[in-house]
């Protein structure tokens, strides 16, 4: 039985087919990277898994259970969600923000109790940001906020985490810090992560750090290919999906051996670029 299994999932916005016949599965301890250009359906797919869209066609199973039979609260005990780093919220204290991860475990009219508080503190400690607990969420830097959101996801205690561009808008160092934390979470908490990313290199990063990783390459709502990073992230595929000519380099890296990295060289010819813009628009 797979942790999650998606069968023939299709979804259309009023004027736009967003997902077409998506079928995939993932297992415990695995990282699945959704890779593809803007508007290819990554976010729509993740939204289905947090129950933000009513399903139009297809089925999703979580550990064999039909998704439609899971209530929002039950779903939230199984699947956590890490959005892009954000600021547009009230200036909550960090600890209070992390406590919100305990929502699925609190009664309708209840507030989190001492036990929830301890779990939230443990989550902050696990991520290594216990010292942030009394700071104001909105006054943190983008990268720090993202670590807090990861702590909230940990406090939610779900076997599966969905991440939507978890490193968007972050600088070099914070991007790496978030990735390192994700690797640590997968390894120590036996978590599985499904991650939409604009950076195909993230798949190589996770793989070279010992996380079993697969890549789902998407284009215009369809899955082009699923497989190991090496198999999917190839020069022809990158050109096909992103319209970018690229090189793939191997870097020697002390302990973990080699790590591959994609270097975009130039966009494909002008006419093809026009087509891509059209489709995004």
């Amino acid at each position, binding site marked *: 039985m797979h942790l999650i299994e998606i069968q023939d999932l299709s979804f259309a916005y009023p004027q736009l087919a967003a997902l077409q016949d998506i079928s995939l599965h993932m297992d415990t301890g695995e990282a699945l990277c959704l890779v593809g250009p803007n508007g290819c359906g990554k976010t729509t797919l993740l939204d289905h898994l947090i129950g933000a869209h009513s399903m139009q066609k297809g089925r999703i199973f979580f550990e064999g259970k039909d998704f439609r039979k899971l209530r929002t609260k039950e779903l939230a005990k199984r699947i956590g969600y890490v959005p892009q780093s954000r600021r547009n919220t009230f200036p909550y204290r960090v600890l209070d923000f992390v406590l919100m991860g305990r*929502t699925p475990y609190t009664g309708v009219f209840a507030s989190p109790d001492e036990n929830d508080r301890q779990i939230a503190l443990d989550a902050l400690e696990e991520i290594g940001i216990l010292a942030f*607990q009394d700071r104001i969420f909105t006054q943190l830097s983008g990268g720090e906020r993202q670590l807090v959101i990861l702590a909230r996801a940990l406090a939610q205690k779900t076997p599966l985490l969905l991440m939507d561009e978890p490193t968007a808008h972050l600088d070099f160092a914070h991007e790496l810090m978030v990735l390192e934390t994700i690797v640590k979470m997968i390894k120590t908490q036996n978590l599985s992560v499904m991650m939409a990313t604009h950076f195909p290199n993230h798949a190589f990063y996770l793989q070279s750090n010992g996380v079993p990783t697969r890549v789902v390459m998407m284009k215009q709502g369809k899955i082009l290919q699923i497989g190991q990073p090496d198999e999917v992230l190839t020069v022809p595929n990158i050109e096909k999906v992103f319209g970018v000519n690229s090189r793939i380099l191997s870097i020697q890296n002390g302990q973990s051996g080699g790590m591959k990295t994609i270097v975009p060289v130039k966009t494909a010819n002008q006419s093809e670029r026009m087509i891509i813009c059209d489709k995004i628009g």
Partner: protein
Amino acid sequence: MAPLEISQKKQSTQRILSVVFVLLPLVFIVITMFIGRYPVSAQMVIDTVWSKVTGIPVAVPDIAQTVVWDIRLPRAILGALVGGALAVSGASLQGLFHNPLVDSGILGVSSGAGFGAALGIILFDNVVMIYVLSFIFSLTAVFFSYLIGRIYSTVPNIMLVLGGVIVSSIFSALISFLKYVADPFDQLPTIVFWLMGSLANADYREISISLIPILVGTLGLFALRWRINVLSLGDKEARSLGLNTRVYKMAVVVCTTLATAGAVSVSGIIGWIGLVIPHIGRMIVGNDNRYLIPASMSIGACFLILIDNVGRMLTGSELPLSILTALVGGPFYVYLLKRTKGGGW
């Protein structure tokens, strides 16, 4: 560990604050019994209260007893109820829409109530009918706002707010129409005064009429206060944290509507409280709705009692409340902003 200690210290501060917030409105109510333009000595006030509570007659003139027990006291209680209800509704809706500019009337409650009251004044000239119509139309207004918000299946917040703006402006137009057709010597001034808010009619009947919707609404919001934190993260995140956003959003809207409608139907439209009291609350207890909701209730209650006392003491005739809430509250708010530098906005 140092951060933990800070955290615990904060908790104990918050506990002290909770006690203060519970006691303060009671103190304001008691003080109100002692002040007013009609001279009643402190001893007479105490004797009156003693006599009313124990049933033992005392040598206080009837008129003084009436002033203390049937005018000042119900007025203070109603002020506490109305002020608390408006402030807590404003705080909740600001949280729900994660927008600090929202107030308790954003979904059309106030303009609906205004229309209902104006209609009651013109058609019936009966106080109870004014309350009833005003209550019914404030619920109607929010219902229509919600319907407009539902044009998209998920009731996005922005659509709900837009629905409220549309419905409010329609009811404002209808109020203008009723003012236009009203008898200019008798009905028109009544409508105008009602729209500026007043507790001058307060007695135990007004309290009993407004008590149930206000209690149901505020207790509901008090119970939901933690969930309002989560709702303020937006639909998608709230859902991913296990909240059925449609149900909880509806619950918050229903509670704020009941509380606000119960308040404005007896007091008329009192501006400013639903917008600014929550901000004053934030400056004192922070943004966590677990503390902000009860704090807003308490501060709103005290503020309205205070304003009402000023309103009835300042001049021979009573000043409408909306004038004073803004005149007193505005500068005070600026002062607080200056002191706290906005607290993280």
